[in-house]
């Protein structure tokens, strides 16, 4: 018996299925002008190369079809692949477009409306890569979408989930080793322990002692703020700009404060 076949027979299982939730940007097309789409996308890639490099993507054709504009899935896919994106699904396509998708082995009607697929804001950055590694428990709670800023050009990847962004309320202590991620604002009524990490795409309010790490505006919202009753944090960050505990001055320690961003500088102000 060869070594290879021995290996085969001794391994008890060759594969495993796991269910998961997959986050992928949705590209909503409003125009069928391929050149214009490519130009607009290229602009965005240049601005945030990290975010788009090798990014999987779902093509949403509903708006186009609503306006009676036709486009070839084969051509769009070719263009997207050329600029380094990976279309992994098509939705809202007509019969012919679905057939084209099939030919390319791209699934059709990907990311149904009530799936927790989020649309990526074109202005978002991935400064906080950890933001994706949320605890499942919390990931399941949050389903609202990312705010997206209207952008010029024909491609406007906005959220198709028109739901308002819900804030998340936590009433239990956030203990060392726990992580919480909120798509909107995060309100914590209990203490946040050293070694805990709370993150929000919006503002963070802590109505107790903050000893752990708090990161607001993690998807690039520079207007986000952190409010807390008793600042003893290990780290505070807004939109990627941060301060660690050694740079938190004595005068704001252990006091109710707000933290905001001004010209890329974190301002910590006591709330009078």
């Amino acid at each position, binding site marked *: 018996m060869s070594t290879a076949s021995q290996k085969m027979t001794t391994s008890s299982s060759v594969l495993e299925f796991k269910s998961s939730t997959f986050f992928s940007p949705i590209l909503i097309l409003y125009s069928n002008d391929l050149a214009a789409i490519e130009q607009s996308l290229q602009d965005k890639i240049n601005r945030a190369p990290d975010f788009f490099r090798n990014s999987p993507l779902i093509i949403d054709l509903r708006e186009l079809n609503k306006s009676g504009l036709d486009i070839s899935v084969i051509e769009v896919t070719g263009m997207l692949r050329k600029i380094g994106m990976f279309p992994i699904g098509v939705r809202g396509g007509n019969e012919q477009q679905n057939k084209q998708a099939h030919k390319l082995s791209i699934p059709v009607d990907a990311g149904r409306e009530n799936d927790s697929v989020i649309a990526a804001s074109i202005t978002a950055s991935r400064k906080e890569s950890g933001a994706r590694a949320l*605890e499942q*428990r919390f990931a399941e709670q949050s389903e609202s979408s990312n705010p997206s800023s209207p952008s010029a050009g024909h491609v406007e990847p906005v959220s198709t989930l028109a739901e308002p962004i819900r804030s998340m309320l936590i009433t*239990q*202590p956030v*203990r*060392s*080793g*726990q992580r919480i991620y909120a798509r909107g604002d995060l309100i914590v009524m209990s203490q946040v*322990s*050293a070694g805990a990490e709370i993150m929000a795409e919006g503002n963070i309010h802590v109505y107790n002692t903050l000893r752990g790490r708090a990161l607001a505006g993690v998807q690039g919202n520079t207007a986000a703020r952190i409010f807390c009753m008793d600042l003893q944090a290990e780290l505070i960050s807004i939109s990627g700009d941060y301060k660690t505990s050694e740079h938190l001055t004595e005068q704001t320690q252990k006091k109710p404060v707000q933290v905001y961003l001004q010209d890329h500088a974190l301002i910590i102000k006591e709330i009078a």
Partner: protein
Amino acid sequence: MARIIVVTSGKGGVGKTTTSAAIAMGLAKRGHKTAVIDFDVGLRNLDLIMGCERRVVYDFVNVINGEASLNQALIRDKNCNLLYILPASQTRDKDALTLEGVGRILEELSKDFQYIVCDSPAGIEKGAYLALYYADDAFVVTNPEVSSVRDSDRMLGILASKSRRAERNEEPVKEYLLLTRYDPSRVKSGEMLGLDDVQDILSLQLLGIIPESKSVLTASNSGIPVILDEKSEAGQAYEDVVARYLGEDRPHRFIEDKKGFFRKLFGGKS
């Protein structure tokens, strides 16, 4: 239906096994049929502290694997006939315990016992997780030092998110603080954290303070849970803990350096 208590900490050597033995004995002495289970597979020491190491025939893993019945493996305590010990295996590896197997045995015990005390191994790995998963109440054993407090905080996070009660969205596991190996003179000199410092960080209901005491070592060497040593401060402190757990209102003691009697309302910060 039994009440399942996990004695946990994260950190090792803080007094979990000492506490498990003491409170199990305390509950049984008050007339509650109690089982105490050693989850520290591979390290077996609850049976030493309970003084039954020479009567171990079958262990927890044997029962899970169906190699012995619960009745065969349970050892009746020599000092109290309402107390039973389910020892850990010294020879098996940690993977011998499974979530399903543990659940099956706790369920079977629940039919016959009023309290089941689970002595958790150190760490936050599988063994500690199995010990806490089915718990109704958690005794979080903490020493007055920063690393122990931090580990306890971590354990509390796991209790709040990974226990069966958390998974099923039931009423959370009731968490109590047990501050052990407390040495008031070393607190005073600043070598150790004080009760207030610990409570500031953990905000838990305080079930008791167990002073550092030589009688603990003496007791474990002779295989008699320290709670039976009524003259020792540690024994009295554990007696208080059991009384408070069962709903009695007793003032906290052993907080201050002998002299003053410290009176203040302790308990969870609201």
